[in-house]
């Protein structure tokens, strides 16, 4: 078993989140927050 297949109690070896969709939504929230910040403050 290589490092990428190693099992974690929570999340996976590539992500701290339980599902990809949860990670996608977090990324979306961060990105939109950054975009909003850039739009307002630049």
């Amino acid at each position: 078993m290589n490092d990428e297949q190693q099992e974690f109690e929570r999340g996976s070896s590539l992500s701290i989140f339980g599902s990809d969709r949860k990670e996608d939504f977090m990324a979306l929230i961060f990105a939109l927050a950054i975009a909003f910040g850039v739009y307002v403050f630049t």
Partner: protein
Amino acid sequence: MVYTKKSPALFIIGIIMLSIWFMADSGILAPYIEHLGGKKYKYTAELLQIPLYFGILSVAIGLWQWFGNHTENHWDYYSSTVAGAMFILLIAMLVRWFVAPEIAVISTAMGKVGQTGSYIHKLLGLNYVVIGIVVGILVVNVFKVPEWARNGVRVSRLGLKTGVILLGTLYSAAELKNLGGLSIIMIGFFVLGSVGIVLWMGSRMKIPNSMGGVLSAGMGVCGVSATVAAAPVVQAKSVEIAYTIGTILLWGVGCMFAFPIIGNLLGMSHVQFGAWAGTGILNSAQVAGAALAFQPDGIETLKVAEIFNITRVLILPIIVLWLAVWYVKREESATQVNVGRVIFEKFPVFVLGFILLFALSTTGIFAPANHYKGKYFGNTTETGFKESKLLKADQKTLLQSEIASVQRDDRRTALQRLIDNGKVMSIGDDDTLRGLINAKVLSKDANSILKAAHKSVRHTAKMIKAFRQWITWLFAFGLVGLGMQITISSMKQAGGQPAVIGGVVGLLKATLSLVVVMMLVSETI
């Protein structure tokens, strides 16, 4: 279990960041910055802010992690990632501010490579992205990722995904109308064809879908950005991303030297070679290198190659969507399920974010809609042109006195329009005048006037500049973390098949595009 480690590591990372800030702020680093390029060193502003903010944050959370009492809960789990995340960020800082510039200094001292007009670090793509991955690989294989940093390494993909969503802001569909019809058809055919062939070969050679997916984007579209954008879509493993980037860069280096030789042997025109290089070579810097090697005394070839290259990059959103649907269908094909429902359930949401920001960018909300990576043409006050930049009478007189020495009609007409209006009147004129500058037909003073006229109509959007900054840091963070997930054993496991597929598809694309260019492309597009 309790995830937060009672360790001084994060506190020490914070102290190191604050030390970097202090040394930059107090001038202790000034001699080294001078060595790295002095006024040309681009990161002074970052050095005076980023390590300060993150240093304070790391020291504060580090003290709490070191001395606080921790119990098992959500907060413990998520906050335990901070130490690893700051560890990655510190490495990204060192790579971006010191390691990459140091390599550039050494490479510059070695001189330009042949007729390419570029230095070896640019041609090999040795920027913070590649170096970041390599440093990450070294950390994990030589020292191993420390226990306290393990959870943090797993947030690197979140950073990459956030960066990919923001990548949408750099492109605009409106830019497509500035591109030639032939470039859109040719690039569309070859990009989609390359992606399709890689996916087909991948399934024939039984490589994982994730590997085939990420390699197809890299070989089909262009270089590192496409690879990084496609990687989370097809859930590519770290080692697969590294393989793809390595294959693209090595293939590109070979092409960069081979293309100009073949072009000269076949007696290709500037337009033909530009179209071929822009289609067949994968990395932007290498496309430019080959074009300049083919035509060192002008930029006609480079301009055509740039048009083809831009067209290719603008197809990226379509490829990302395609791969997202393809991957979901492939992964679920073993079980008979409703494809529509599976796509709804599994489709990567962040791709929609990427498309959303691409659409917003196209509306012109962040920059004039016709921008490309934040750069746009504008010769009116509304689009950023300053009236004070209009040519003065003596400048017009000088240009008028030299116009007779310009032989080519298109260049003479563009120059006359510049003299009559006092400013560059169109993107086409701007390109033509850049060619005139490069051809060194006019005197040094006249060329300086043309360069100033060119500069006054080319602008960089502030918002896009800010987005680029964010994307840069998110990618640097994500890719260093990604490197930390690549072990020697995982590289052995991936084997050499990706390089074989990459080589076959690259050769096929280069050969077919050469045939098409020789048959269809004439001197003008």
